[in-house]
């Protein structure tokens, strides 16, 4: 009991002192992420944010004040993230929240933000429910939706004469949504396709040998892959060893992102049609500018998709506050309506329809060059043509 009192007393003192000393100088943004649990993805994201913040502040900040991001680690736990969100807003003086990669943490923060009336810009979470099925007035999302990226791959798949498909996706909500979107779009474009097997390895616990055997046994014409991270590594290794990919077209969601392609090194699969981020191939324009800036700021490192998302997050927030003219929540909500932001991917808009940004995706074919996996024949695709119709979205989205 004594310990409890000491803890409480210490906290109470810290709280009083903290709120009094709160600097009125910088504009603070609360950033919650899994910096420890998913260090490989969260660190490039943080560096992207810091690069943008530095550029913004060197140019005079926002509304004449510097922009400051407070990064907090949630250990990948939704419950902890919600607690930290409250702490950032009420104790640290943050004006809005951003962050999260894991969908469940993103959904938890979003629901909390909606309840408390805090603005939350979901940077990376993959769940489309954030803006559709569970969307709310206070939640916005930057990253291109899973649905759109799956639809881009489905469009390409429909051009081939493959009829039977196998899918493999991690057995959780993101994987299921990704498969569903691919099936729906592909069937709409090519009604005679058949899905002969669906594999659902548990996330980060793939039994790759068994999965490859099960897919091989179904003899599909083509494969749709949603696995990523270590699951992808194991799947690619077993699949290559056992010849699963020979003579088969493979469509890989996110497979082309440097986070996943780089660890594979020379063993990166060749000829897969993927979404990703070919930072090495840019020659001019804002996309190239970002890569140069990033490499200059972090010598010896190359940008990941997380870096780009972090960078665009910070740029979006700066544009938002500039447009709102204040850090008042209502003003910012108003400013978010069709907010336009100049980014390395070109101009994006936060749609007032569903709070989703129009960040698109790079698609291309994988190849191995100089012992590294890269995307070739790539192009940037605007998401608009791949979105569900406005009416469908209104149907899904709960009223504010």
């Amino acid at each position, binding site marked *: 009991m004594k310990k409890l009192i000491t803890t409480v007393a210490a906290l109470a003192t810290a709280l009083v002192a903290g709120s009094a000393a709160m600097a009125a100088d910088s504009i603070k943004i609360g950033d919650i992420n899994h910096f420890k*649990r998913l260090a490989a993805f969260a660190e490039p994201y943080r560096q992207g944010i810091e690069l943008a913040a530095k550029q913004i502040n060197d140019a005079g900040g926002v509304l004449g004040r510097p922009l400051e991001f407070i990064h907090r680690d949630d250990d990948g736990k939704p419950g902890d993230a919600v607690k930290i969100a409250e702490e950032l807003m009420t104790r640290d003086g943050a004006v809005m929240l951003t962050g999260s990669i894991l969908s469940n943490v993103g959904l938890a923060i979003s629901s909390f933000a909606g*309840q408390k009336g805090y603005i939350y810009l979901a940077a990376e979470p993959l*769940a489309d429910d954030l803006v559709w099925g569970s969307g709310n007035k206070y939640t916005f999302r930057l990253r291109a939706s899973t649905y759109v990226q799956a639809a881009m791959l489905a469009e390409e798949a429909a051009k081939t004469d493959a009829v039977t498909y196998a899918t493999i996706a991690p057995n959780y909500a993101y994987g299921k949504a990704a498969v569903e979107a691919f099936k729906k779009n592909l069937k709409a474009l090519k009604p005679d396709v058949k899905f002969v097997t669906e594999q659902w390895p548990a996330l980060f616990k793939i039994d790759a040998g068994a999965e490859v055997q099960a897919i091989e046994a179904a003899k599909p014409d083509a494969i749709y892959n949603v696995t990523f991270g270590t699951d992808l590594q194991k799947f690619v290794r077993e699949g290559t060893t056992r010849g699963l990919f020979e003579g088969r077209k493979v469509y890989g969601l996110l497979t082309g992102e440097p986070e996943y392609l780089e*660890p594979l090194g020379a063993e990166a699969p060749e000829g897969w049609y993927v979404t990703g981020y070919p930072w090495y191939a840019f020659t001019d324009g804002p996309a190239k500018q970002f890569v140069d800036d990033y490499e200059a700021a972090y010598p010896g490192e190359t940008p990941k998709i997380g870096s780009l998302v972090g960078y665009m997050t910070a740029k979006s927030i700066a544009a938002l506050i500039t447009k709102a003219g204040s850090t008042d929540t209502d003003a910012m909500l108003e400013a978010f309506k069709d907010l336009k932001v100049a980014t390395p991917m070109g101009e994006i808009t936060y749609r007032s329809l569903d709070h989703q940004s129009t960040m698109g995706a790079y698609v291309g074919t994988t190849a191995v060059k100089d012992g590294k996996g890269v995307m070739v024949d790539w192009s940037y695709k605007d998401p608009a043509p791949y979105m569900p119709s406005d009416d469908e979205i209104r149907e899904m989205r709960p009223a504010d």
Partner: protein
Amino acid sequence: MGLFVAQLLTGLANAAALFLVASGLSLIFGVTRIVNFAHGSLYMLGAYVGITLMGVLPGVVGFWASIVLAGVAVGLIGVVIEICVLRPVYRAPELFQLVATFGVILVIQDLTLMVWGGEDMLGPRAPGLKSVVRILGEPVPQYDLALIGITPFILLGLWWLITKTRVGILVRAATQDREMVGALGVNQSWLFTGVFFLGSALAGLGGAIQLPKGGADLLMDFSIIAEVFVVVVIGGMGSIPGAFIAAVLISVLNVFGVAYVPQSTLVLMYIVMAVVLMIRPWGLLGREEKAGEHGQVGEPQRPIRPAGWIGRSFVLAVVAILALVPILGSTFAQVLITDILIFCLFATSLQFILSTGGLVSFGHAVFFGGGAYVSALLVTYFNTPMELAFALAPLGAGILAIGIGWFCIRLSGVYFAMLTLAFSQLVWSLVFQWGEVTGGDDGLVSIWPSKWLSGTTAYYYFTLAMGIGGILVLRHIMHSPFGYALRATRDSARQAEATGINVKQIQWMAFTLAGAFAGLAGGLFVFSKGSIFPDELSISTSFDALIVVFLGGVKTLSGGVVGAAFMEGAKDWLTRLEYWRLVLGLVIIAVVIIAPDGIVGSLRKLGERLGIVREEESMQ
């Protein structure tokens, strides 16, 4: 036919790493009685060390030498852990050491991140074994065949070591009765250190040998630990051939699970575990537990009595201060204390069966999460008013506890613990994989309290009333005749039986009560966070509760509350730091070493030694 054989071979190859890690854990448990949570971390270290060595040592010889050296290196790390962390706490209450191993997990996680960085590393292929062999037309990787060939030799080697050498005789003797071995003049410390070396080396070998089929990443430690527990328990704790059979069984089962029920691969494993434990509680090749059957290990528990006036006024003062927090403190202080109170209630409910009942549950989170899910499901599907949904949380968790308790209380000791773990993992995997109803990993969101409770301060007072109320009720039950009967079953089931106490029924009721109160905490949790995810049912939530109870002091009444408040407070303060897991891990290890009776237990002893508290007063 070809496919069937190929699948079987895949399963056998997968069993290799699993067997190595599990046999190490089993060996360590058998001799030292330490449930080594950090075993997954040793496996992860084996992978990282192995990958680094393989980058330096070339060729076929270099590859295999790297695997062996990785094993040796991790073995030595194990020795360091044993000497620095575990040796000082061998005399502590049974299972206390698992808190120390939890600290070790945190330290290793951050050190690994510091040394090797965050990016996933792909393991190199085995030189000379890069392609496939066609067996009945199906491609089978050569390395799989190598693994299938190697594993029996390792099993044979271990078998020889255990049955034919002097070391093995000592190990077996210690597994059966370590006090006797000590009494016969065997240096137990070095025996324990030696066993820890061997067990850790096996985990390291497991990590290194799987490299050509995977790689090294920072999530490996937790992703293997649940599976390893399953294997050890099914095989029988302390039995190496048992671990082998179970590893093969689980791996082959997984392979066929992938082929025929791809949606429910997780559930399958835990069903098998639960079934095996119900039929053979001590595992396939384990022996029925003899030690610790009569009474508890270590110094006897003291009798308890209700708090005196000092204690009562102290608690009253704390409640008064807490009641003033909304006036004096900030909003966030209320949110933080709400979290702490919920966790305190959850920990107290575990302490109730653990300390008073002597029933160590490794799966208590199933009731916490279960209660939360009951409320969340009701709100989501039936638009149940919050008040009703909240009231049904402890009820639902209690009913769940009646069901699970019916199976579990037939067992005792560590087998009871393992069966509770099996059931909680079973429920967790069901919730996780039954996405249509539970939302799976994306959980259930927008579970908010009614208008009158939706303010932070209102909910704070609600939690304060429910949390403190719940804790006081549980304490009251401990002092009631029922509580006395429960303690009798703990101290001597035989004598309790002889005095006319229906031991199993009392234990069953206590288990149900503890479940219901954990469910109450879960109900408070879901409405404070507004969402619920399967994490709250998972093994790590169970361990969190277990750790704070031991940290606070298992042989006390207030240990759970103190431990929970300490842990949550420390976490909130430390997570601001860059390497907070390292610091938190070291803090936990330090507390464990300084206060082997837990925070409350050790403070009490200190007080007695200094003469501040008299012995008969210090029974909080």
